[in-house]
């Protein structure tokens, strides 16, 4: 088993997702079965193969270095669950 209770807790913490015990159990099962399944990739010889991260065959075009103002802070804040004087507001971080 690759994923145990400690591992799932660690991943959940990294993902900032709170899991209850029932969910942890379910995900341990799911993730182990998915990881067992993807492990068939180890059959493939990938020595000297370059990893492919961008399939796009086009070359990045350059543009003029001109600044432009596309978004006002008002627009950016429009969907914020909580805001205060032009800023996003969150629970207090420092005592």
């Amino acid at each position, binding site marked *: 088993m690759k994923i145990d209770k400690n591992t799932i807790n660690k991943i959940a913490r990294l993902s*900032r997702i709170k899991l209850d015990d029932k969910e942890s159990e379910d995900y341990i099962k799911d993730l182990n079965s998915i990881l067992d399944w993807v492990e068939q990739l180890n059959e493939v010889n990938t020595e000297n193969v370059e990893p492919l991260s961008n*399939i796009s065959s*086009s070359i990045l075009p350059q543009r003029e270095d001109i600044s432009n103002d596309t978004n006002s802070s008002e627009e950016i804040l429009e969907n914020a669950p909580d805001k205060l004087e032009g800023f996003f507001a969150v629970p207090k971080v420092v005592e």
Partner: protein
Amino acid sequence: MSKSSLQQTLKDLDTKKISIRELNQDYLKKIKEKENLNVFIHFSEENVLKQIDNLEKDNSAKKLKGIPIAIKDLFCTKSMPTTAASKILENFNPTYESFVTQKLLDEGSIFVGKTNLDEFAMGSATNTSFFGNTINPLSKENEPLAPGGSSGGSAAAVAADLCLGATGTDTGGSIRQPASFCGVVGIKPTYGLCSRWGITAFASSLDQAGIFSHNVEDASILLHSIAGFDQRDSTSAKVDIPNYFENLNDDLNGKTVGIPKEYSIDGTPMEISQIWEDAIKVLEKKGVKIKNISLPHTKYALPTYYIIAPAEASSNLARYDGVKYGFRSDEIDSLDEMYENTRAQGFGREVKRRILIGTYVLSAGYYDAYYLKAQKVRKLIADDFNKAFKECDFIVTPTAPSAAFPLNEKQNDPIKMYLNDVFTVPASLAGLPGISIPFGKDKNNLPLGIQILGKHFDEQQVFNAAVSLERSYE
């Protein structure tokens, strides 16, 4: 099945056989009659009427003036909320318009509503949506079928004739598979043909916008409208976009079709092998040379995809933290508590599963073994296609390993669900254009789909082969 056609409707509007208002009022009526299918996450009659009013005042000529289009609720739209079918974006009202929808607005089309999808496009049955299942319009009474997914709402909207075309997105098959399930045409173009700007990101190296329509000709018109370079998407391609519709040519004489042997997989229903053979026979009659090809790494495409896509998703979905937009939990004793509760309550089960697996394969100590390994296998899969396309002009395969299945049938076993994408994922990993067209039926009279794949940016060849098969089938 409806005989609606965008092309015919454009002619009827042009010759004043029907007005924009009459046309759209017909569609409004049909949408209201079919509410039980749960095709739309957002529909507002008032909004549609307002668009009609505005177009009536507009005297300029526009290519899609007055044409009712449905938009997958993954595209940001200023005039309608955008949820990605997730609770975490339940109340999100974009302050900007996606590239693709802006293009459609510029052409004068009318947005009838935002269609349902799997949450964040993660699924193959439109059953992970926070807003409930969409029902396949081809279902018999009391036997609801899945429309496929993730763009199940858009596929269903076209199949039920609630619009003359719809937008979708395809990451591993999310346009082609639902098109096959609902008996409509669905095209995913080459990665980079349509800007991803304003599309809620799932797996950025795979996500691509595309089109659902009633027939291949309509798809060729609509794809031309949404394609194009955009500097706000760094992977957007600066290529000439041909007028696919005007260039349509169903004469395939002298072309070569590739038939990959690896797509004959155990457990595929007879009927699907049969329509595949039928399609090959039709092509042969048209003077197409049949070439048996090999794509040796095909069987590794799904596991590769299910490492790369969740890895990218876990990174893309980090933005949903309850700070900038969307849902925020009430349980917020500290900043970390706020993040963890917001994401626990805001995301559904499948989305969480993918974030967790993506986080794991990217985490220290596992990155090389999983993520890097998958990227290398992805290269081999792309190379397989490059080699194959030296010997053929296009490739023909089935679209999906089954016809539409009953709603909720495959919910419990994630791997079984993932197998839906077995024929569509390889081309996604290679960034190739692919179309699904209805071709034949199974024993329950449900439609089956044939997939045509082309070389990078050779959408014209894909359309030509598709229109040729479509015309021979009708």
